């Protein structure tokens, strides 16, 4: 019987298999950041162990880094200690680190791919649940806990139970107005935040094949929001083109050997998935969340749902609690929801294509009165590229704030936070209670919807903007 993409990559990394035990998997790439690594390094020290493979390990600073005044000492002492601890640990153990101020610094899931370290058919782990991002290259990539970080540092392996596989086939073609973010939000709303649990998701079908590498990363990034530890997309010419010539991509004969291997990483025609979901791309529209988990979303044109309409009591209860927290009423059109803050950034939507898309919409327009728009590139490289293209000017001229790279308001560990009761349209991945600041309310959106929302001051799509322009013209 044929095998799926996930099974092929898995099988190629089994160091040891024994009846009744989890497989021992070899890890090709281990990414580190300051939040989930200190206790792991501590553990190594306590047991007198070294990092086994420095050549497969790399660290960056992202969660705590400020996005303003990065040349000044970090004000929050606790954030400072965490960054200093990472620097000390990397120095003590010899790990390559890209600290704040370094040209390769950025959100760990943006950095790996842009260096060309994330490659098809590799196993990638990081003490961070959005490691699923790297699956866009046909890598088996998943988030791990701090104990596992220590385990990988010490052994370059992980004992893992073989996951089940789920195919998410996206048939047809996405309408022009629909982005990868809308697609993944719609998938999560369909299968639920627990729907992918225990599975590796494989996104496939014509609509997926047409996506750029960056759009594929947006999709795989949010696999975890569907409950899955990993999401994958089979590598193809788009993947190879993206990798070719990057700093750490294979070269010469190695490149040829690598491509030959990568081409074998497709799910066989006769392979069987443990579960399958089919989505019709043509039926999709811009999508936003109204609740406090990423599965609580709806098309922008819809109304806030009525909790009473849920059959399942725990879903009904969750919807009631969400509306209360979000300060929304059932039946209210989503388009009427006004925001105070717009955040463009994160490992979901902080790459150059995302910034270009948002810039194209705010260009020549201005951010609505009373709205602050924060644009935070996912990495220093993304920032430099954006500046080279003049996008920073486009944003600042529209009245948005152009910031330094990092996780920023995605989780508000640095000073970029919502105040209690404030509401954001955010291109990040989690709308949990308090995620972006205590009492803050988050609507997850695409960069395009974020930009249109910034201009109009309420949840909106770019199409609403042209309508508004037309009305303004008539009135003028």
């Amino acid at each position: 019987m044929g095998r799926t993409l996930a099974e092929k990559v898995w099988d190629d990394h089994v160091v040891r298999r024994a009846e009744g035990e989890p497989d021992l998997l070899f890890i090709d790439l281990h990414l580190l950041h300051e939040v989930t690594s200190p206790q792991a390094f501590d553990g190594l020290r306590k047991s007198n162990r070294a990092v086994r493979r420095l050549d497969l390990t790399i660290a960056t600073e992202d969660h705590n880094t400020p996005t303003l005044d990065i040349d000044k000492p970090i004000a929050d002492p606790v954030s400072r200690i965490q960054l200093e601890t990472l620097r000390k640990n990397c120095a003590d153990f010899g790990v390559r680190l890209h600290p704040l101020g370094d040209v390769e610094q950025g959100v760990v899931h943006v950095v790996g791919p842009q260096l060309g370290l994330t490659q098809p058919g590799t196993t990638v782990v990081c003490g961070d649940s959005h490691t699923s991002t790297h699956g866009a290259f046909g890598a088996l990539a998943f988030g791990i806990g701090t104990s596992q970080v220590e385990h990988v540092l010490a052994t370059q392996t992980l004992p893992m139970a073989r996951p089940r596989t789920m195919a998410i086939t996206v048939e047809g073609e996405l309408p022009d107005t629909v982005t990868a973010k809308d697609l993944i939000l719609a998938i999560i709303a369909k299968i639920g935040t627990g729907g992918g649990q225990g599975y590796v998701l494989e996104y496939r079908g014509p609509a997926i094949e047409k996506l750029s590498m960056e759009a594929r990363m947006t999709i795989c990034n949010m696999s975890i929001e569907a409950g899955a530890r990993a999401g994958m997309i089979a590598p193809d010419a788009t993947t190879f083109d993206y990798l070719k010539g990057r700093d750490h991509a294979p070269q010469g004969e190695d490149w040829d050997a690598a491509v030959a291997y990568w081409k074998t990483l497709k799910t066989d025609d006769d392979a069987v998935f443990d579960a399958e979901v089919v989505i019709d791309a043509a039926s999709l529209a811009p999508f936003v969340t109204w609740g406090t988990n990423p599965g609580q979303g709806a098309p922008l044109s819809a109304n806030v749902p009525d909790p009473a309409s849920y059959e399942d009591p725990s879903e009904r209860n969750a919807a009631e609690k969400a509306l209360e927290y979000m300060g929304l009423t059932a039946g209210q059109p989503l388009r009427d929801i006004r925001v105070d803050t717009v955040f463009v950034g994160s490992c979901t939507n902080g790459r150059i294509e995302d910034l270009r898309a948002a810039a194209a919409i705010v260009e020549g327009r201005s951010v609505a009165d009373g709205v602050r728009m924060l644009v935070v590139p996912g990495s220093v490289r993304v920032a430099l590229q954006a500046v080279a293209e003049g996008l920073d000017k486009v944003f600042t001229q529209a009245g948005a704030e152009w910031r330094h790279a990092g996780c920023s308001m995605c989780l508000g560990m640095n000073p970029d936070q919502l105040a209690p009761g404030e509401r954001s349209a955010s291109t990040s991945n989690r709308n949990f209670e308090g995620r972006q600041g205590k009492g803050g309310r988050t609507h997850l959106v695409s960069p395009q919807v974020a930009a249109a929302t910034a201009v109009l001051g309420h949840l909106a799509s770019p199409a609403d903007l042209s309508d508004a322009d037309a009305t303004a013209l008539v009135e003028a």
Partner: protein
Amino acid sequence: MEAFTAHTGRAVPLRRSNVDTDQIIPAHWLKKVTRDGFEDGLFEAWRKDPEFVLNKPERAGATVLVAGPDFGTGSSREHAVWALQNYGFKTVVSSRFADIFRGNSLKNGLLTVVLEQQVVDALWELVEQDPTAEITVDLQDRQVRAEGITADFELDENARWRLLNGLDDISITLQNEDAISTYESSRPSHKPSTLRG
């Protein structure tokens, strides 16, 4: 890691579904660089409410958390497990746990027990009516027992063996040094290196 054979204690009924790790331990606590001292961050936002179940005097000293479905979703932070343990919980019962949280909990010796929602409902009712009621989680027999309730649970043999013996993963893995070196010596040269380039 401390071995876990069986534990008996009073319980906290947490009637909420989809309790994500941001609720268990908010992000600002993640700045700490140690594994202890997280007890005050546990459910921090909810604990501001004096009516929150953890704040009730009769729940002080409880060691068994009986939670709603989809407990531990969201961020992979292991701090969520440490916070529960630092607070004093030895075991968490739910009808469904998020994968990463479950993995983290078992690695740290916090036994997460999956029971049918009906049984969870029965446990909730029991401990809500009688806060002094005790629940026994017996890993040896893979069984949860409380007054009028007996329910078997599943846990894979390997995880159970590690918990029962309090074994740490790294030393177990390092017993396979030969297999790891053999694997390493046959990795293709096109695989990425963080030091090249």
